[in-house]
């Protein structure tokens, strides 16, 4: 089911119909002839789930890309052509992500795709993007350990979120005992593996680390919260590092609040809880719990204020919140536009080569740069939850942190680097001087 015509913002109604008809004819009658529509506009694929479990997070990102395309078209588009969004719904179904990606690239001939949220969906579309040589912008914080030629990672790598957050707790809160709680899938497991190695390298003993995994959508947190309380009463300052995913967070925080665990006793720092997730909870009992991100809506910066205003006007909702993955799409989109203009073409090879080194302002007053490993530089902020569902930034890194594709903490990956400019390799081993991993 394609719903592209609904989101086509530039062409008048009659031409839109004509285009659709022409495209239909072209596909129906002559499979070898290119669709006529491709000449007039540059197509941008949007691959975010609009139904199913992940719709809760991804629908906003779809709207963000449509908003960005709308804004860009107001400025005259790219290379003198209007941009046209092609929205598909992979319905939170991982194999369907690959199918829809293939459809976007081969049938709709999109020049770039903005999409995916979960790591498993990204892994599912990777082979498609490699095979068909297209470009994916991935906007979510993830576990790292990956650098692909066709993917640009605009979310945080672990060293841009998890490690600084732990550093903050160690330095500012003098935390000595750690609970690593997460949902049972690849992102929390890898992140916790990195964190465990990091904590041990800082002299934290094994018995001071408690690791706990829960299924997706876990809703009965009584035992785990009681365990955390017990773990926290061993006479050392304790903190929880939470990689609990989306839906399970609301019951988790409710249970924390009800059992009376205050942030001044056992602070919880979360990597997957942002403004959107807090919209479903009364945040007063959560005052002071923390989140680590590269962007907060509450950050006072003229760019940010302009963006929030335009976004709320676009969605016609003055209360609509913004969040970190949205900012990642904003940066990624602007980088892509600049790269296309620099390359003078939407040819994937030219754009991929043009992207490293491209700089685009982020919404917090800095300028992010695309690195040769296809990750970007970002500032890291630690925010405390306020009573109104927003965050108060209590700490930030002095400058921008470059994203590491391969974690320096893990034995298997500390010698690896990704470099698509000079080495043309995503997993170059600096010790054996070979491309192809350890």
């Amino acid at each position, binding site marked *: 089911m394609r719903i592209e015509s609904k989101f086509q913002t530039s062409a008048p109604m009659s031409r839109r119909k004509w285009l659709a008809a022409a495209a239909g004819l072209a596909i129906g009658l002559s499979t070898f002839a290119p669709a006529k529509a491709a000449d007039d506009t540059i197509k941008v694929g949007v691959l975010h789930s609009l139904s199913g479990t992940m719709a809760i997070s991804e629908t906003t990102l779809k709207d963000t890309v449509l908003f960005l395309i709308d804004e860009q078209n107001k400025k005259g588009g790219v290379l003198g052509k209007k941009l046209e969004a092609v929205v598909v719904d992979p319905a939170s179904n991982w194999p369907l992500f690959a199918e829809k990606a293939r459809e976007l690239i081969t049938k709709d001939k999109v020049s770039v795709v903005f999409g995916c949220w979960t790591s498993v969906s990204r892994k599912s579309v990777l082979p498609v993007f490699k095979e068909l040589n297209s470009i994916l912008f991935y906007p979510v914080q993830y576990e790292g350990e990956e650098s692909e030629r066709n993917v640009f990672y605009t979310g945080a790598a672990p060293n841009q979120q998890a490690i600084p957050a732990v550093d903050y707790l160690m330095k500012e809160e*003098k935390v000595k005992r750690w609970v690593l709680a997460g949902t049972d899938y690849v992102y929390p497991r890898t992140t916790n593996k990195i964190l465990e190695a990091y904590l041990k390298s800082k002299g934290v003993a094994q018995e001071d680390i408690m690791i706990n995994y829960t299924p997706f959508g876990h*809703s*009965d947190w009584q035992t785990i919260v009681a365990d955390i309380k017990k773990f926290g*009463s*061993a*006479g050392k*300052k304790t903190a929880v590092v939470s990689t609990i995913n989306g839906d399970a967070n609301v019951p988790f925080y409710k249970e924390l609040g*009800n059992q009376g665990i205050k942030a*001044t006793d056992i602070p919880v720092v979360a990597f997957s809880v942002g403004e959107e997730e807090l919209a479903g909870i009364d945040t007063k009992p959560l005052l002071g719990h923390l989140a680590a991100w590269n962007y907060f809506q509450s950050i006072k910066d003229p760019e940010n204020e302009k963006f929030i205003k335009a976004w709320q006007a676009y969605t016609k909702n003055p209360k609509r919140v913004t969040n970190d993955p949205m900012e990642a799409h904003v940066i990624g989109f602007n980088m892509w536009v600049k790269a296309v203009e620099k390359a003078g073409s939407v040819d994937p090879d030219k754009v991929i080569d043009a992207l490293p080194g491209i700089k685009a302002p982020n919404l917090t007053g800095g300028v992010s740069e695309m690195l040769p490993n296809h990750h970007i530089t970002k500032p890291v902020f630690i925010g405390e939850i306020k009573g109104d569902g927003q965050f108060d930034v209590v700490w930030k890194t002095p400058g921008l942190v470059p994203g590491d594709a391969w974690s320096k903490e893990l034995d298997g990956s500390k010698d690896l680097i990704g470099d698509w400019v000079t080495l043309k390799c995503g997993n170059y081993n600096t010790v054996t001087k070979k491309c192809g991993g350890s």
Partner: protein
Amino acid sequence: MPLIRLLRPSLSRLLFAALALAFVHLATQPALAGPYEDAVAQFAAGSFADTEEAIGKLVASAHPRAATIIVALQDGRLFADPDAKTVFIKAEDGKVTDAATGDAVAALPDKASAVRLNNKLRRAVSGAMAGLTLLSPDLNKRIQAAQSVFKTHDETVLPTVEAALKAEKNAAAKQAFAEARAAILLFKQDASDVDKLDAIAVIKARGDQEAMALLTGVPAGQSAAVTSGIASAKAAIERNLALWSMVQNAWYGLSLGSVLLLAAIGLAITFGVMGVINMAHGEMVMLGAYTTFVVQEAIRTRYPALFDYSLLIAVPLAFLVAGAIGVLIERSVIRFLYGRPLETLLATWGLSLIQQQAVRTLFGPTNREVGNPSWMSGAFELGQITITYNRLWILCFTLAVFAILLAMLRYTSLGLEMRAVTQNRRMAASMGIATSRVDALTFGLGSGIAGIAGVALSQIDNVSPNLGQSYIIDSFMVVVFGGVGNLWGTLVGAFSLGIANKFLEPVAGAVLGKIAILVLIILFIQKRPRGLFALKGRAVEA
């Protein structure tokens, strides 16, 4: 909790001593010029370090207004204008005063913003407040202050605690002060062994998690008698806590069981009694939760005073909404599919997707906020376990719903007709029962009860379009395990699964625990394919 280590020791001690002093000598202390004004102005500097320093200086100034300013800071009512370096207090009724002088001010300047706190400062402030309120006339505040001192065991407040202990009349407060005193003595370097052993006895008698934490935190280098006293006290507390953790697991199991029962009870009717494999059951629960959301929204905007009653209002409405949709579904789809379980399964699965997407379109894909009424927030201590009010109420509510449903099936004519139709449709029809009407009403009843479940579940879970999906598997598990067609089976099934789950979880972890439960059920079904309480007799053949 070793909070004190996190504060700067000098600062926190200063806070305690000076604030206690300020409180006692509130009337007599003359105002000091200079350092006090500097301290207040420093709140406008903006950085956390400045605020921390300002608190220290403010307390050291022992100015009579210091306590007022600290309270305002704690409540987020202290405002500062960074340019003019002026600081204001906004009273709870909205009146603005100049913080330094206490003079009334017309309005806050535009640039003024609340003085920010982080966790470290919050701890400093609340530690200071505890020292301040040890002698408070308010009983609860005294107890809170004593408990706070128990955690921080700051020896500078020892004289105040001892004075308070002597003057105290209330038994609970006396106990709290005695424990606070014991905690201080235990950590005091120059306290005698006799004092320390007495202190250990007091702390051992308290016997909870915090006592354990305190004993664990005692620095090494104590005399042999004290060290062995601590070790034996810790062992005793550990034994005690191990016993209580069994009670705690049982309670958590009951609570989880009540949630399972609540989610499954509607399905026990539509699937258990009617035999419809109803995959849209979870969506009825979701509709109930969204009804609660709509009711609360209406109350928030129109009648905020009624908020505590929002759930009571939502229960009948959720029953009606979900019940009406249930009747609609039965009349329009399911009645054509009786006796064709595979088609019913697919059709109801499709209906569940339609309902999810409809709600997603109508209310948006993100979570909706459903608040807890005040009587469902918080927790109380029963012995060494924490019981949260929302879980307790849900348990009571579930049992009430179960009892009402049972009574309805047993004592009303509709209940009689329902049982008659499900046991022998043709015989019932021959007796003049309008079977198709009864079918619709039975399905409506099951759906309505699922809607009621949604009201309760909105208190502990996300209100999102996916709410129902997370309960559908568990509901089927409970009904099949308990025995299809038997409400008592559903009850016993839900509670035994809940308790088994909660005893497995601490040992195996949440993920493995869940898998273990599923494996156990599979094995059980092999042995007893009809569940715990199988229906016997001719009804089984029908």
